[in-house]
């Protein structure tokens, strides 16, 4: 290849530009495909909650945490991340079904991921973090806290127990817990 003239240099640059545009377009198309066909979204949820009274009011009180099948057969699991444990420390969910995970914290910033899945979110005081997902593999998945939250951070983890759909048997009140199985 030669670069005898301005035109020749320009031509090389244009080729490279075209290549980069093609790459970016291909990646964007893949992302659009995921959005349209698989309904994938960045898990963002603008929903505020008072961290000071989290343990006193409604949804995130101790007795309401864990997995529950609610109106319209929606499976929702509520978890509180607090220094230095998750409450509850084990949640049970069915596979191949949309599950909603809702998290809140009364103290500092935590974060979670569920190993082997795309579930990954920060848990920020003052907000409810929410991820909808479909678990495809069954078994006990590890859910560690991935944001340093204090001296006990490294011992802060919970278990997500994914069971086959026919083995997911919530009680008459719609609740399902790890102990019950």
């Amino acid at each position, binding site marked *: *290849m*030669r*670069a*005898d003239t301005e035109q020749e240099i320009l031509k*090389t640059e244009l080729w490279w530009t075209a*290549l980069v545009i093609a*790459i970016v377009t*291909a*990646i964007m198309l*893949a992302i659009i495909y*995921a959005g349209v066909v*698989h*309904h*994938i*979204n*960045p*898990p963002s949820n603008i929903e505020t909650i008072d961290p000071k009274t989290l343990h006193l009011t409604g949804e995130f009180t101790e007795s309401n945490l864990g997995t529950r099948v609610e109106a319209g057969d929606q499976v929702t699991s509520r978890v509180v991340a607090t220094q230095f444990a998750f409450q509850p420390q084990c949640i049970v969910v069915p596979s191949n079904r*949309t599950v909603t995970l809702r998290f809140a914290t009364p103290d500092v910033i935590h974060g979670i991921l569920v190993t*082997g*899945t*795309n*579930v990954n979110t920060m848990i920020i005081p003052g907000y409810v973090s929410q*991820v*909808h*997902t*479909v*678990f*495809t593999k069954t078994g006990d998945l590890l859910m560690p806290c991935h944001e340093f939250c204090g001296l006990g951070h490294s011992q802060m983890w919970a278990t997500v127990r994914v069971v086959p759909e026919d083995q997911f048997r919530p009680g008459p009140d719609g609740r399902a817990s790890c102990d019950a199985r």
Partner: protein
Amino acid sequence: MALTPHPDLSSQVPPRTDDAIDDAALERVMREVPSGALALSLLTVGLLLLAWFLMYAFVFLPRGMVG
């Protein structure tokens, strides 16, 4: 002991104008595009893209929907 300059250093003294490479010679050298560099950049960009797509198709999508 007195320090004597390293022999190589003398060659790094800025060239005097009268023995500088003339512009025409420089142009001649620059005309040949190093095709090895081009191949290397294509290869690295290609590998990066390949890695992205492999992760996307065989890790991200099978792991199921989030949103």
